[in-house]
């Protein structure tokens, strides 16, 4: 049960930060998405995001900084294993499932369904 509560709180807080950025500044959702992924990468490299993942679980890996976390962690693990080449293959390797799912499911759903008229 504890893991659900911490996931709720950590995931909620990350989304509130995004909301404040969208309301308080001129940043569009696209800016926020890019900013969050990049911050996820940088925070992971600095060793700040790992403890957040330890506490928040899915609350830290489901929001987009979690995607950056997987990328950065993969790149670092890649360097440990394969040296400089690992910096290029590690990140995408670690996130390949998510990227492929996004491409395949995204394409499939776009083919299956038609755009609704905006409510």
């Amino acid at each position: 049960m504890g893991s659900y509560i911490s996931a709720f709180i950590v995931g909620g807080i990350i989304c509130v930060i995004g909301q404040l950025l969208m309301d308080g500044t001129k940043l569009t959702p696209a800016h926020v998405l890019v900013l969050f992924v990049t911050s996820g990468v940088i925070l992971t490299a600095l060793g700040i995001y790992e403890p957040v993942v330890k506490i928040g679980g899915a609350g830290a890996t489901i929001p987009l900084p979690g995607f950056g976390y997987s990328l950065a962690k993969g790149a670092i693990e890649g360097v440990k294993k394969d040296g400089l080449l690992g910096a290029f293959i590690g990140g995408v390797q670690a996130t390949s499932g998510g990227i492929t799912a996004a491409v395949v499911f995204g394409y499939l759903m776009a083919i299956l369904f038609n755009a609704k008229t905006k409510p």
Partner: protein
Amino acid sequence: MQKKKQTVQNKKYQQYVEKNSPKPDYFRNCIWAFLVGGLISTIGQFIHNQIEKRMGLSHLDATNATILVMIFIGALLTGIGVYDVIGKKAGAGSIVPITGFANSIVSPAMEFKREGFIFGVASKMFILAGPVLVYGITSSVIVGVIYYFIK
């Protein structure tokens, strides 16, 4: 002279617009973002726990599988038109989770279908996801290269 006058007018107009455009309701928006973002994360945690328990995957593999499932859910809900209804209220609460990433792929892909399957669907899929991948992957490579030299 004419131009200068116009820029002054433009500035005044801009100030007028800023003064009179409705201010966002920060508190209510944040509550919505918190609740919906938290809920999506909790669903993710539930799926993660189920996968870890039932399929006996390692923690990292279970995390990856969870992201896969969440992307599927996000894409499906966008397809049937539910996700945009949630997004109207939830704001960042529906944009920031990975389901929002799926939404950002399916939504323009459906909308531009009439422009064809290459330049419509397949190309417009990445209108938002493209930048995310470009900056995410590039920064991760930079991190990897820096790590290589300082380790």
